[in-house]
């Protein structure tokens, strides 16, 4: 049987809020609006709301499966058997590598487009070294970083006050002007705002009194829903419809209007502050990879971590065209969507059937 995680490695229950909330803040939040607006124009916020509500159900499912404190590896073993479960857990490693790689590469893309047109390899090397330093610090360091990320993102959120001066409330009208199927399709695209928290499947045993942490996880999702609905509302009111469709990074573009007496162009500071926001979304998946490798193959993180980072470094410098980057982001959000909103419910159903079967067997 698994031994419990030592007391000195676990984090407080309420930290779940920071872990979940910070892992949702990927580069996606800088420019999700025009992707969704393609389908529902002024009703973007409704789609975001729908996806947020569905995500609450996913969180509920995850907590049902994970109680009492287990992780996804045990669930896989329980539902799919040792062999098939092992394969799925290996695929999970690839998935986590993909999302952290996409995170790094798209952040580099933003820097290259907005600030420094440097080569990918220089920026990637810098980021990889920072990530190595952080992840090697262990899970508690990651939690601390999530905490900082949340504080900073809340601070950046206040910057919305500036574009608020230039809004046209008329843009929101007419509300609900799209068919329900359009809204659902757009909600699928809105999923990029709500994926990333699935690492909770791995770090769950590291939370103190993990069973009681569900309210914090729900709070994080609720917070994300409300914040992103508000951001969508402001974006729709700030840009005209046609303009929004041709604006790639709507959230970032809104910061271009800000002018402070001591600072003319705040978007540059915004981009670099954002590094601290996205670092948890990159580091937690990488840490999860090392965790899976340790549990499954008994490979020490000290060995696996450089190896994983090398893979990420090489793959991210191989992507140097804009088209490739866009493909990577689309691919990543598709895969994440099917993982979170397809695979997890499937696993949930399987888990309950299996549980019933086991119970019937025990009874007879």
């Amino acid at each position, binding site marked *: 049987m698994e031994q419990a995680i030592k007391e000195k490695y676990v984090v407080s229950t309420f930290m779940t809020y920071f872990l979940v909330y910070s892992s949702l803040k990927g580069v996606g939040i800088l420019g999700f609006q025009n992707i969704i607006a393609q389908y529902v124009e002024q009703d973007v916020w409704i789609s975001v709301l729908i996806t947020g509500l569905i995500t609450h159900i996913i969180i509920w499912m995850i907590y049902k499966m994970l109680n009492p404190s287990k992780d996804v590896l045990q669930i896989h073993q329980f539902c799919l058997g040792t062999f098939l479960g092992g394969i799925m857990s290996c695929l999970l490693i690839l998935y986590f590598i993909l999302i952290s790689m996409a995170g790094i590469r798209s952040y580099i893309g933003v820097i290259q487009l907005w600030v420094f047109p440097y080569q990918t390899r220089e920026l990637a090397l810098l980021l990889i070294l920072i990530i190595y330093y952080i992840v090697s610090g262990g899970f508690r360091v990651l939690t601390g970083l999530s905490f900082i990320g949340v504080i900073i993102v809340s601070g950046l959120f206040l910057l919305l006050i500036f574009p608020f001066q230039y809004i046209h409330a008329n843009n929101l*009208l007419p509300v609900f002007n799209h068919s329900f199927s359009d809204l659902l399709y757009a909600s699928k695209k809105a999923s990029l705002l709500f994926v990333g928290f699935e690492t909770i499947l791995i770090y769950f045993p590291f939370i103190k009194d993990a069973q009681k942490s569900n309210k914090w996880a729900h709070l994080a999702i609720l917070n994300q829903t409300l914040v992103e609905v508000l951001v969508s509302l402001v974006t729709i009111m700030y840009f005209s419809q046609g303009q929004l469709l041709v604006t790639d990074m709507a959230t970032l573009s809104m910061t271009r209007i800000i002018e402070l007496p001591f600072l003319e162009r705040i978007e540059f500071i915004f981009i670099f502050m954002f590094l601290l926001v996205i670092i948890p979304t990159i580091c937690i998946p990488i840490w999860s990879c090392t965790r899976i490798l340790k549990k499954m193959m008994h490979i020490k993180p000290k060995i696996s971590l450089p190896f994983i980072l090398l893979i990420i470094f090489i793959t991210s410098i191989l992507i140097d065209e804009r088209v490739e980057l866009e493909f990577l982001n689309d691919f990543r959000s598709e895969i994440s969507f099917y993982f979170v909103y397809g695979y997890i419910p499937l696993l949930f159903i399987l888990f309950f059937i299996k549980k019933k079967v086991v119970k019937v067997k025990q009874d007879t």
Partner: protein
Amino acid sequence: MIMNKALTICVLLVIIASTGCERARIIDDILIISTKGYDLKDGLLQGSAIFSTYAEKDKQDIIVGEAKTVHSLFMAYNNQTHYPIEYDKTMVVVIGHHLAKKGLSDNLISSLHNDQRLGSKVIVVVSNQEAKKILQVEKTKPPSFLYELLKQNIESNNTPHTNLHSLLYQYFGAGQDVYLPCIKLNPKGLIEMDGMAIFHKDRMKLHLNPLESTFLKLLVDDNKIARVNFPLLVGEKTVHIFAQSVSGNTKMNVKNQMNRPQILFKLSLNCIIADTPLELNLSQKRDIEMLQKAMERFISKGTKDLLTKLQKNNVDPVGIADFVRGKDRDWEEKEFMRMYPDLQFVVDTEVKILQTGVGE
């Protein structure tokens, strides 16, 4: 122990990597453009730009080049300068009126839209002359003269608020047309505000005189600070009243009357009367009311004339079409524009006089 070693290596690598990445741009070794101008010359785009020279305080210089596209202009500029050109701090873009009438071809609009190095607060203006001539005058002025001139007029005079964001907002948005401020060189050779330019799609179609642009500001801008001069008949004599509106709001409404949509505008303005003529006794309610009525009539008529003029030219800078879009679930731009010439406008103004006799 091993951790420490790893850390040292990390730090060393970061230092090596970051010094390798250094591409500092020292302020003395670059030319920072503050104003850009675009003209059309022999089928080519003629660009002019003003930059500060740091060798002498407050001295500016101008550079002119010709090219086919906006960004290839920078090549033309760099061919003539001793330091590289940087344009991140551009504050004003001046468009010559030939180019504006020919259309801000997709090239100019798309470069304004795609260029992340321009802030959204950049002000785009149309000049009555060649943009180059305006820049040649600006060169002799203190730095950022033109920007301050425009900003001052937008904030506390009769020019409606515009900037790069509003330009792109109107250009890409359905149901509205672009309006930009106009400047000209007056006979004394100084830069002066000269009403507004109204665009249809990317072409300048109409020029509004200063009075008309004041009414446009009252209609579209949240900032209602504007100054008007209107005549008032007192007995046999006509006196001129100078009034300043300080705040207020505009409400738009649609009404369908016998298949002919009616657009209602309700302007509420709080005003200050600056010059009090001796013929009026403004401590008397009767005279105040007379003044109020006269001003309301003047603004209502002027606004309605403006709306009709815009309607005749088939342009919609007020965004009436966009407003109707919000009310009508089956709105289509083409269909609305077919209906646009038949719209009927009703303007109702309500003036409140806060103060009288306040000199400037």
